[in-house]
């Protein structure tokens, strides 16, 4: 609890109430839809029928919908595709960005100015959808998972943020390491990176979220629907409302309740798409202000 500075007048009761109500409504608008979705995904068919659709009050709960999704089939495969693309893509992006940002953060390095310009210029002009598509096609990357990684592997914005952070590391520290005989890679690995954990976490999150959420590139470049990442599955089954076909065992459901309801399955797909973000986010959140601001101010 921070105390009010002495010069500041006490808030009026009306003002304080209004502020509380507004902030509460804002938080609810963010949290309530997620609560309803998660609850419905955990509900049994009876609970969904009783609620007449989405479940707002906890009733009978079960994990059937998730069992169904992860029992093999379309969604399981899509989760694997998305996870693979995210892991490989993030590692590659982060590696390339760190190398380039470090290279560009030392003013004396070879071709420092022109190379930096190459990155900054990408802010001014975007090449457009058609030529980008044609390049990917010429390279034979259509229906390859690399088409989801390579075109977006390096973000100039992330690079500039990272470079700004590296530039704040005093040159003396690096010089003394160099005098002791450390190579550039060793300096980067042993000195620069350990000093930049926060910004690395934030940039890593940006890249990972980008890959996990990748939709546009998948629409353009992945025609084969057995290779679809999760976001396209989400669109097909949830947004366009196609029914999820249960895995073979539909027959032995005498009571009709053993199969999880379609709505619960759909909500479970949403939760699966949401989960990685919700899990990683709290750990990275506290670094946001530092990481983003430096880049925004200097960029």
């Amino acid at each position, binding site marked *: 609890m921070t105390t009010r500075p002495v010069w500041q007048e006490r808030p009026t009761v009306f003002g304080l109430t209004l502020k509380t109500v507004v*902030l509460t409504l804002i938080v609810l*608008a963010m949290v309530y839809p997620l609560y309803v979705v998660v609850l419905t995904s955990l509900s049994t068919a009876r609970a969904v029928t009783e609620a007449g659709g989405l479940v707002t009050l906890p009733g009978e709960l079960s994990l059937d919908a998730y069992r169904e999704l992860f029992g093999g089939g379309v969604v399981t495969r899509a989760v694997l595709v998305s996870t693979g693309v995210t892991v490989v893509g993030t590692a590659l992006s982060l590696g390339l960005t760190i*190398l380039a940002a470090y290279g560009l953060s030392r003013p004396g390095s070879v071709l420092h100015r022109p190379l930096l310009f190459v990155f900054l210029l*990408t802010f001014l*002009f975007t*090449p457009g959808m*058609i030529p980008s598509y044609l390049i990917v096609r010429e390279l034979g990357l259509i229906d390859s998972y690399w088409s989801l990684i390579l*075109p977006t592997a390096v973000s100039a914005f992330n690079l500039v943020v990272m470079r700004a952070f590296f530039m704040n590391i005093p040159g003396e520290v690096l010089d003394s390491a160099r005098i002791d005989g450390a190579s550039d890679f060793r300096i980067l690995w042993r000195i620069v990176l350990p000093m930049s954990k926060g910004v690395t976490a934030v940039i890593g999150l940006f890249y990972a979220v980008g890959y996990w959420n990748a939709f546009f590139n998948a629409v353009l470049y992945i025609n084969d629907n057995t290779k679809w990442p999760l976001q396209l599955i989400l669109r097909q089954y*949830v947004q366009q409302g196609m029914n999820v076909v249960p895995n073979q065992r539909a027959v032995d459901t005498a009571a009709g309740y053993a199969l999880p309801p379609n709505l619960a399955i759909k909500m479970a797909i949403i939760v699966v798409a949401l989960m990685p973000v919700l899990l990683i986010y709290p750990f990275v959140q506290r670094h946001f202000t530092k990481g983003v601001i430096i880049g925004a101010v200097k960029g």
Partner: protein
Amino acid sequence: MTIPAVGLLLVFHYVPTLGNVIAFQDYSPYDGVAGSPWVGLYNFQWLLSDPEFWTALRNTVTITAFQLVFYFPIPIVLAVLLDSVLSRRLRLFIQGVVYMPHFFSWVLVVALFQQILGGAGLLAQTLRQAGHEPWNVMTNPDAFIVLVTAQSVWKDAGWGTIIFLAALAAINTSLYEAAAVDGASRWRRLWHITLPGLRPVILLLLILRLGDALNVGFEQFFLQRDAVGAEAAEVLDTFVYWRTLMTGAWSYGAAAGLFKGLVGLILIVVANKVAHRFGEQGIYKKS
């Protein structure tokens, strides 16, 4: 060390940028860039006489203008509001919640809106159970601009506060103290200290938004185009996708893309000039 990253940018950014020359050709993949015939400005003439292009352009500009009025100020107001919360822990909690949707994909956001506001969604369900006629906001072309703006606010307005909060934190508190001692009320302090303190950031973001005027995003519109129809939901990016990528009219699509890119470039340069004239820094310094 920089070479791998530069290489990727060359291949996936600069080569396609040069690839825009096919806008002046009648390109066919079989003949390639070298073999396809040159047609001058034919594709651009075609573009300007295409009513669907004008619909897309009009929708894009309308949506940008609408969001400039109804979206742009929200992060500023929200940041000032958050900044006034005294308890640090409460503030961090609210920040954590409002930043979060920025990391959701558009598919997810649209799906969530559909579940809450759509024809089979929570709102319709509640209305029906209360004996009212449900209405479906998700398929109404007239309300579409409000819908997409609401989605953008939900997803990104919280994240947008981050930069304003930083600017607010940079304002020297002794200014407030001195003003309060001189008898300035809370509103006068807001007007004479807070807003001038935010001015450079507000201008910077306005410039960026103006330079991006023809970019309203692809996914949000692509996803909802079927529900409300092309008349309301077609924007320049979706136009390029449906009209050309789907039909193989490469040169025509490249012309539309080049038009968009060039207008964006001009806008950002002009907006910067204006910012310099106002004595602000803009996104690049005067050279």
